[in-house]
């Protein structure tokens, strides 16, 4: 027989899980408690430890932050490399430890997400990858950072938005699972830029009007600066001449087969226009809308830009039901890029 005597009734848990006046992590705890409720009721008569864990969740107990590990590739290409003890042995590994932990806090505090998979996955990084390597990437399991050639690019861990960008590829992998070509590829790259930039703004406590909206500003080397380049990408003006990776700004310029780092300029500009129209901090409204559109609907590997735009419009209306100006800002932003 299943015992149905719960301390907190399920309908109360559900109400708290939806209550936007509560912090995200508390709502997440209530949502978790609902999930565990059925099992908890079955096991309660056995007086297992599960009841205590569930009660703790119902009280909004904080979820432990995911473990962060860093490895030194020592200029080789074998991953992950040699383990580095926390807090790091040099400036690069220290940054990898600190900024990765900060990205985990960013996702947990603002969106109630426990690591990239929302299940506490250890966040692993390798630094000093290869020789004078002008790149950083997510390999499906971990982050990898090159030192740069010292002329065009500097150490890729120097840019917090790059670290946020790479970790967000993990979030996408465990949520919408967007493909990496054509329109879903452009969206995949864009959400990494969006949450990478948002993370940098959150670290600096910058409002949308104070933020620079540049991606990778801190990794631009002297040789590139001497030619007038200031960043990889500029979300406020994707086609700007100061970008090392300039992008189209309107959907009419999208072409099948485009590199995702090019086509992402279109949704990047839509996010920028949304955030600036709303004002304040980018993570308060625009970020919540984009996060829900990315993570709240299960895998959508072939999602088009138009479908993503429509989803953010719909989410804006749902999340900010009493604030028509937010939904209007989202709508106008997408229209401005032809979507």
């Amino acid at each position, binding site marked *: 027989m299943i015992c149905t005597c719960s301390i907190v009734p399920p309908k109360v848990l559900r109400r708290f899980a939806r209550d936007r006046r509560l912090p995200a992590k508390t709502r997440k705890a209530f949502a978790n408690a609902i999930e565990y409720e059925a099992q908890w009721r079955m096991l309660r008569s056995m007086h297992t430890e599960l009841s205590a864990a569930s009660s703790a969740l119902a009280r909004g107990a904080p979820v432990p932050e995911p473990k962060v590990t860093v490895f030194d590739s020592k200029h080789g*290409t074998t991953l992950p490399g040699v383990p580095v003890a926390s807090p790091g042995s040099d400036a690069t590994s220290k940054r990898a430890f600190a900024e990765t932990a900060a990205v985990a806090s960013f996702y947990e505090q603002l969106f109630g997400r426990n690591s990239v998979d929302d299940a506490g996955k250890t966040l692993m990084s390798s630094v000093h990858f290869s*020789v004078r390597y*002008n*790149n*950083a*990437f*997510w*390999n*499906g399991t971990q982050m990898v950072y090159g030192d740069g*050639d010292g002329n*065009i*690019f500097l150490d*890729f861990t120097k840019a917090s938005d*790059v670290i946020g*960008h*790479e970790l967000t*590829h993990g979030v996408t*992998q465990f949520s919408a699972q967007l*493909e*990496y*070509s054509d329109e879903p*590829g452009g969206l*995949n790259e864009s959400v*990494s830029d969006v949450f990478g930039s948002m993370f940098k703004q959150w670290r600096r406590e910058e409002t949308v009007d104070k933020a620079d909206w540049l991606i*990778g500003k801190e990794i631009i080397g002297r*040789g590139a600066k001497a*030619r007038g*380049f200031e960043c*990889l990408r500029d979300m406020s003006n994707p*086609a700007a001449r100061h970008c*090392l*990776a*300039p*992008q189209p700004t309107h959907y009419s310029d999208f072409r099948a087969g*485009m*590199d995702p*780092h*090019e086509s992402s300029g279109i949704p990047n500009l839509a996010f920028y226009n949304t955030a600036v129209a709303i004002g304040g901090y980018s993570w308060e409204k625009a970020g919540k809308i984009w996060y829900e559109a990315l993570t709240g609907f299960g895998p959508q590997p072939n999602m088009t830009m138009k479908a993503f735009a429509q989803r953010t419009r719909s989410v804006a209306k749902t999340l900010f039901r009493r604030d028509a100006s937010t939904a209007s800002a989202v709508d106008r932003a997408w229209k401005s890029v032809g979507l």
Partner: protein
Amino acid sequence: MTVLHVERLGGLPAIGTPRSPLRSCGEIALSELSQADRAAIEELFRNPPRAAASAVRDAFRYRISREGASGAETVEVPESAVPSPVAACVKDTFV
């Protein structure tokens, strides 16, 4: 002597894309490669893996060309499939 013409594309900096001011090119003689690497290159031309099918994000792609018995051949493959000496023969420069 067969020479491989190599271009590195994409990555976080989107190198070699139409709007990019950066190109990353190089070449290497097949004779400079170990037997294992030559075999790996041969396999890339025979059965090139698709870059988009990889779970890796922001990785480079490599476009490798050679003059074969039936004329010029070109493949575009993910970085992870390229032997290290071939991957390392490129140099990033401004156009």
